[in-house]
């Protein structure tokens, strides 16, 4: 990809009121020398180029600083670019614009893409995306060259050289990525809502809670197994005791007859109770047979409905039908207004379905009449059967007692043991139910907790497991994050070290041709460039010219690695150079970039500007101020030479 500057235009900016256009050709000349006396806004032009390329944020003071004079209220800067896409293709024109409102101190960036249909200004910077994302202010300074940078890249305190390398190779993006990873992990951990789990300690704590819950469950299960086994044993014993009692009773013939009778009665009663209960339940479930009170309530409601003439013969559906017919039943036509009223008023009438829901009750009542058995009568029967059962049980007890009284010595301990077993079994049944019931109502009545009830303990264990999983996941995520962050730091460090070395070697190659008098080399790059020469191993006392040479060597080395061919724009490149150095520099500089724009002043003609006079692909632009203060722009070598010759004050 190749980016070139074709022109720029200033309206009411520092350079002066009105419009100034600088055209570098389309396609632009490889070299452009713009001769501009000091005070006409070289620095602000550089600043403006950087601003539109990087969509820079500008302060109110900075915006007002661009103002031509107090009479103008607005101004515009426009930069023309010619961009060739990757793999050649038609180059496209882009115009980046900054509009300034000096009164408000505000600005607005926009882009005009000449080749795009339906053109017009699009807000913001609209450039090919892979170019746009590296056009960050720090990077732009490298090719819209900031003179400060020349010094800074050798300043050990400023790390500008590293900064430039990091910018070009986007190593800063790695730092940004690290922050994004931290944010992403925090976000996920917040979602887990288990803040305690981000540490090893938190994990251990929740592991402990989980283990305790598991232990509790195991204890309860063991207790249940023991109780069930005890119950089985007791039931077996109960059976044995009963058999023995029966045998004892059987020894006296008359008692045995009574026992057999009572047993048979007990079975019959149990069967009757079952049948009657079922019948009672059926009567219970029918409100009409549950109680005469309810039946009369239902009958009364039926009467109310009848008296109120409910359901009404007209239902809301009827209104809908009429409304949609188009003609009323009386033959009058129904228009929109009538339709509206009909639809509205029908709300006052009950829908057919709701009426039939309770009307069905009337029919049901009438058909049932009194043929259904009443609940209370059935329950009376049931009551009697329950009393029979009780009497039967008492008779059986008496029988046992009689057998005992008749001198059967074993009977006493046997019946005693039987009732003991009954008590123990009842208690056991309750204990077992308390342990194993999953019925929430029962759990409530036992006031069950995870410490007393197995299903609750199981549920608690599940919750502990879920928490532990979350906590572990959260902790795991922290460790994964730390691991990745560490890797990225090491990658960044390693890559930077290698890139420094690559750039150092490249820089030194270029320095060989740039500074011939004294062989300067970059000894190492560690934040800044550290120099050495053949004469000394640590070179700090370099001249201004040498310093600039080093900067150029470094920059060209660096930018030669950029994925784009960029223009190079520099302000007063030769001012501070000795004539000897200028000669050397001007031999090498022209070859450094595909497009170079030099802002020069007249004193830079000697040994610098003049070296371009013979180069064909060069454009000379000369700005001058007329006697009445207007600005004139001239193109061509003759005017350029003339102005330089006149030596306009710097």
């Amino acid at each position: 990809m190749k980016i070139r500057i074709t022109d720029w235009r200033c309206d009411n900016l520092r350079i002066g009121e009105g419009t100034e256009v600088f055209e570098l050709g389309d396609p632009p000349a490889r070299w452009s020398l713009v001769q501009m006396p000091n005070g006409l806004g070289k620095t602000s032009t550089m600043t403006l180029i950087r601003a539109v390329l990087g969509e820079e944020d500008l302060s109110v003071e900075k915006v007002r600083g661009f103002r031509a004079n107090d009479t103008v209220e607005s101004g515009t800067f426009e930069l023309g670019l010619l961009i060739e896409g990757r793999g050649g293709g038609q180059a496209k024109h882009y115009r980046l614009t900054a509009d300034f409102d000096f009164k408000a101190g505000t600005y607005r960036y926009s882009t005009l893409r000449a080749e795009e249909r339906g053109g017009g200004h699009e807000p913001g910077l609209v450039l090919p995306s892979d170019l746009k994302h590296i056009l960050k202010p720090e990077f732009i300074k490298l090719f819209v060259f900031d003179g400060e940078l020349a010094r800074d890249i050798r300043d050990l305190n400023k790390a500008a050289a590293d900064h430039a390398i990091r910018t070009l190779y986007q190593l800063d993006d790695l730092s940004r990525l690290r922050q994004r990873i931290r944010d992403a992990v925090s976000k996920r951990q917040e979602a887990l809502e288990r803040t305690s789990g981000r540490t090893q300690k938190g994990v251990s704590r929740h592991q402990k809670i989980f283990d305790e819950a598991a232990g509790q469950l195991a204890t309860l299960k063991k207790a249940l197994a023991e109780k069930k086994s005890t119950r089985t044993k007791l039931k077996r014993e109960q059976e044995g005791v009963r058999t023995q009692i029966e045998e004892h009773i059987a020894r006296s013939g008359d008692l045995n007859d009574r026992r057999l009778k009572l047993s048979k009665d007990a079975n019959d009663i149990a069967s009757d109770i079952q049948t009657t209960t079922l019948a009672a339940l059926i009567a219970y479930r029918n409100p009409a047979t549950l109680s005469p009170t309810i039946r009369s309530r239902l009958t009364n409601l039926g009467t109310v409905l009848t008296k109120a003439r409910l359901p009404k013969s007209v239902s809301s559906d009827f209104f809908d039908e009429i409304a949609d017919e188009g003609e009323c039943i009386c033959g009058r036509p129904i228009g929109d207004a009538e339709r509206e009223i009909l639809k509205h008023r029908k709300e006052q009438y009950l829908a057919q379905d709701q009426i039939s829901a309770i009307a069905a009750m009337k029919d049901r009542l009438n058909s049932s009449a009194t043929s259904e058995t009443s609940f209370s009568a059935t329950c009376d029967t049931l009551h009697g059967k329950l009393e029979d059962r009780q009497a039967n049980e008492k008779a059986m007890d008496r029988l046992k007692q009689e057998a005992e009284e008749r001198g059967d010595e074993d009977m006493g301990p046997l019946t005693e043991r039987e009732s003991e077993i009954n008590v123990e079994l009842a208690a056991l049944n309750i204990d077992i139910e308390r342990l194993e019931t999953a019925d929430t109502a029962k759990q409530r009545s036992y006031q069950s907790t995870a410490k007393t009830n197995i299903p609750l303990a199981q549920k608690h264990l599940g919750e502990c497991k879920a928490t532990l999983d979350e906590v572990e996941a959260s902790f795991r995520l922290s460790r994964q994050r730390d691991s990745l962050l560490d890797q990225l730091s090491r990658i960044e460090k390693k890559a930077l070290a290698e890139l420094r070395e690559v750039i150092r070697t490249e820089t030194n190659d270029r320095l060989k041709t740039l500074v011939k008098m004294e062989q300067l080399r970059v000894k190492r790059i560690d934040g800044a460039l550290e120099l050495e020469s053949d004469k000394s191993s640590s070179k700090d006392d370099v001249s201004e010219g040498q310093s600039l040479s080093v900067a150029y060597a470094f920059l060209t080395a660096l930018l030669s690695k950029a994925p784009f061919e960029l223009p190079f724009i520099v302000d007063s490149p030769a001012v501070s150079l000795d004539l000897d150095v200028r000669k050397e520099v001007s031999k090498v500089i022209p070859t450094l970039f595909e497009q170079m724009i030099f802002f020069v002043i007249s004193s830079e003609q000697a040994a610098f500007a003049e070296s371009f006079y013979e180069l064909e692909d060069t454009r000379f632009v000369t700005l001058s101020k007329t006697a009445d203060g207007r600005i004139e722009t001239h193109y061509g070598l003759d005017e350029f030479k003339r102005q330089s010759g006149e030596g306009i004050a710097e």
Partner: protein
Amino acid sequence: MSLRLTEDAASFFSKIDSQPIKGVRFLDIDKFYACLMLGFRYAQLASDPSLMPAFLAAGAKYPDAYQPYDSYLLGLLVEAEIRRRNLDPKNRDLIEQETVKLLDPHSPLGLSEDGIRFMNRYAAKGFEILRDAMAPPRSVDDFLVAYADLWQAKSEPDSGQPA
């Protein structure tokens, strides 16, 4: 929203199925119904019952045992509300409005949201009355006998005019 027992009622009846009788299943809706009928009887609502989760599946109709009587249940709700709010039974529009408010023929139980809310509050009050009158039942037969006594014994306080 569906029919729900109060927490206390659920716990009151919780001993009952520990002694099952063959062929007879005492359902959750039987427990609810016992309470509901008493609530209707006195036309009284409980103020702010804490309820158990619904015992019918979402969108379920009345269980088979109660399906023949669903229109009675709806009618009794309307009737109880007429008594509780002392509505003039001769005012056709009022009765009509009340019915529309409580019933929704398109819902599985035939009740509107309001209707279901009222059913639950009547049942909750009915349970309070039930609990005052009997001990937690240990078996279905015991319960039925005690419940029948409850209906026979107390002569009815005539709350509001009968519909």
